[in-house]
């Protein structure tokens, strides 16, 4: 069970504006989903060590260096920006 206030709070953390109607619906639906997920508590996980995981994985790293890209490629990315000034993305002021 999750309360309407909790949904409102989490949605704000996730940067999503919800309408009153959405808030009411989601509170009901998310409670149902979380209730279903509760059944994971039945599983005994006391012996699982995530550090000694079964997934054999290695970190794949690369050198942290600048890769030069052609200007056409860069402008394709910049063209997607909703707002820009010169060659910079533009945002609302924060302070």
């Amino acid at each position, binding site marked *: 069970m999750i309360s309407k206030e909790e949904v409102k709070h*989490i949605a704000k953390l*996730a940067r999503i504006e919800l309408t009153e109607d959405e808030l009411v619906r989601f509170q009901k639906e998310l409670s149902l*989903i979380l209730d*279903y997920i509760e*059944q994971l508590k039945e599983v005994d*996980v006391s012996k699982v060590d995530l550090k000694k995981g079964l997934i054999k994985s290695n970190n794949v790293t690369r050198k942290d260096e600048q890769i030069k890209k052609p200007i056409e490629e860069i402008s394709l990315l910049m063209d997607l920006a909703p707002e820009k000034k010169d060659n910079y993305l533009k945002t609302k002021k*924060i302070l």
Partner: protein
Amino acid sequence: MDLTDLTIKQVGQGLFDKNFSVLELTKAHLEKIKKEDKGINAFLTLCEDKALKKAKEIDKIIALKKKIPLLAGVLAAVKDNILVKGIRTTAGSKILKNYIAPYNATCIEKLERQGVIILGKTNLDEFAMGASTENSAFGPTKNPKDLTRVPGGSSGGSAAAVANNFCHFALGSDTGGSIRQPASFCGTVGLSPTYGAVSRYGLIALTSSLDQIGPITKTVEDCKIIFDIIKGKDEMDSTSVNDKLLVDSDIKTIKGLVIGIPKEYFVEGIDKGVLELVKRAINKYEKLGAKIKEIHLPLTKYAVACYYIINPSEASTNLARYDGIKYGLSQSNNKELLDVYLDSRGAGFGDEVKRRIIIGTFALSSGYYEAYYLRAQKVRQLIKKDFEKAFNEVDVIFTPTAPTPAFKLKEKTENPLEMYLADIFTAPVKLAGLPAISVPCGETNNLPVGLQIIGKSFKDDKIIKIARFLEK
């Protein structure tokens, strides 16, 4: 000769025999799409000009008797969460309604190099979140076998396009069942490769520890052709694996093959018609000399619950990039930066995306992290262990791909949880990172049913070859 009823293999032969040109082939398919897709809605974008131009180029190469590319004239549909340079890529979301892909996904580069022509981009559940393609912001896709039913999802547009002969094959992506379940519902073949077998560079991320690109095809033979082209290590995807791991299997006969049948997948609640057809398929393999062995995967019933913590958690972080600043929908009529975030995301995302971002944010938040996310990760390890144990005794595992055939439109949209349960037989495989293929095994009440064949890690080629015996 019906030009729109060919497999990839037949296209190659037909071009070699000069039965048709690539341009004729391309035009025939585009015409069919224009005529028939209004009722199906498989495509979100058609790349008509680009496709016709490329068709003419390939015809020229053939006429000059230069080296003909391996997949010359093969026509593809691409799920609209895979980037094709210069073409609109929406992920089925309003937030990317006007997004033009600035680069190609690696699998697109590989396919185009072999002569594949892309006809268009196909419909999907928004950001691949769903099992029916009804969560698309651009309307649902309908199942070509029965227009009152869903094609499955999230790669529903891709599966419907292949099933209705709009193209020779399609690319889909599978996170919890999104290739195999629609393949089963539409009567096509669908492969979800081993995690890391195919590069995901250029795939719009949903759940990075699960997402895989894979082919949806008319035949198992075609599935192998496409998988062999798109698989392999890619510098641009650090999770893609070394080519040496992806070796071909030398299996030539079913004789002696040990097939595991997990008891937990044959329980009450499965459609009787599905059960009967899957059992009939298993019998066929037994007659070919396979040994059938009952096995246990006791954690199966927890897989969906586990999946619906892992998936939303990763989705909530992956989708944080849609902020109304770099690209995508931006509602910037307000004064503060926070309003841009709140309003762009509030207006751009649909219900299911919002639900999952909220669940994920909740599961990862301080105070709940251990009870939800960490526990789910541990259960995931146990599910993987379940499969590893089973594979000590058997070579492959057979199950139904989905518990039912295609369901009716709107049947499950009122209750999100019911929609989640459509992934009950496909999600566990993904949590374990294993490859699985869905192959048609018959029809019940005129609706296709898929058999799922699950293999050990990197035994993709083996399950494809085993699946071929059902086709023969």
